[in-house]
């Protein structure tokens, strides 16, 4: 009997792209709704965006089974927080919790690439961007997932975030108005969909501002 080799992987990549943009008094979080594996499309209508708290919204690409497990842990931890403190967690606290949750599985990571968007305690837009093991940073805008290599240089070009090394530190929020930011996100995804096979079908945009949360959708190419 020849030696058999294990060729099973606990991971898959379901693709997808996430973008978030922080403004002075709003935050836009967007992701496409395609879920794929290899050359197959599993579904054209899968939401990658979840509301973790009143003012915290997370979009995740990568392996959606891990993403669901991660969302479940975060929901449970947030419920405990609500019972202990009798309030919703704020966005920077949720950002730290997400980091800790990812790092907890440092040696068997969640294969999830997240962007967390929301409003901070002053009502300013905030975006946190992560790697799979919880390294995170507060930024003005971010793109994650399969289309990030296509979208990031364009966002750099349009938004030119100040370097985090600058002294004195500059605010990372973008100068755009809310409607301009939404239009920019739509442009980004329309372009990424042209070249990335894992991005497409539909774009889901979540907008957080002082008056609450709202969702918008835009059709994308289905091929």
């Amino acid at each position, binding site marked *: 009997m020849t030696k058999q080799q294990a060729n099973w992987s606990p991971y898959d990549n379901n693709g997808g792209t996430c973008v978030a943009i922080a403004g002075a008094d709003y935050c836009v979080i967007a992701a496409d709704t395609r879920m794929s594996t290899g050359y197959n499309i599993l579904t054209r209508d899968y939401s990658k965006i979840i509301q973790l708290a009143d003012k915290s919204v997370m979009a995740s690409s990568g392996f959606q089974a891990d993403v669901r497990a991660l969302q479940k842990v975060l929901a449970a931890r947030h419920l405990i927080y609500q019972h202990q403190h009798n309030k919703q967690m704020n966005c920077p606290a949720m950002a730290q919790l997400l980091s800790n949750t990812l790092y907890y599985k440092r040696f068997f990571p969640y294969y999830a690439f997240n962007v967390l968007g929301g409003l901070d305690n002053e009502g300013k837009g905030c975006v946190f961007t992560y790697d799979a093991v919880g390294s995170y940073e507060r930024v003005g805008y971010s793109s994650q997932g399969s289309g990030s290599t296509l979208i990031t*240089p364009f966002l750099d070009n349009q938004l030119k975030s100040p370097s985090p090394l600058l002294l004195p530190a500059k605010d990372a929020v973008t100068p755009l108005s809310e409607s301009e930011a939404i239009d920019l996100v739509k442009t980004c995804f329309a372009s990424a969909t042209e070249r990335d096979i894992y991005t497409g079908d539909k774009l889901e945009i979540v907008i957080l501002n002082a008056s609450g949360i709202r969702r918008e959708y835009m059709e994308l190419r289905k091929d």
Partner: protein
Amino acid sequence: MSIFEYNGSALVAMVGKNCFAIASDWRLGVQLQTIATDFQKIYRIHDKLFLGLAGLATDAQTLYQRLVFRHKLYQLREERDMKPETFASLVSAVLYEKRFGPYFTQPVIAGLSDGDKPFICTMDSIGAKELAKDFVVAGTASESLYGACESMFKPDMEPEELFETISQALLSSVDRDCLSGWGGHVYLVTPTEVTERILKGRMD
């Protein structure tokens, strides 16, 4: 790591209204170490025909020498310059000669054809031609360039707008690629003139 990513490069060509532009970065590296910051990747075949070579620099230079040689023979025999379409077929044929031991380079060809119609084209290392109407990209920054060009390109741009667009696309793309950058080199070609411009960029 792929041999195509040994030296690092970013190449892009775009079509405008009766004109075209071709642009590249300046860096020559050996993996992560930068060797030169004034390395030319765009070659002028004649006044209305330009060739960009991304990929392994040594193969790019060798291939360029062979193509110049072939183009000179053509000029002597035909007493005229080669059309871009013809030149693209020549490049393709020269590459396919080495089908099982290829030049590790991805060419970008841009020229003005008969009636000053812009022509752009790219191909893989063994000569499979890809003719495009709008823009073509090549090199280690190609993914970034696809994203940038896809969102910045408009059809039928005038020369100055085309220059601005290709420059913005190149500079924002190389800033997200470790292996290319250190400024840009842009040729803007119209039926009447060739403009060469040097772009300053981030030096990291």
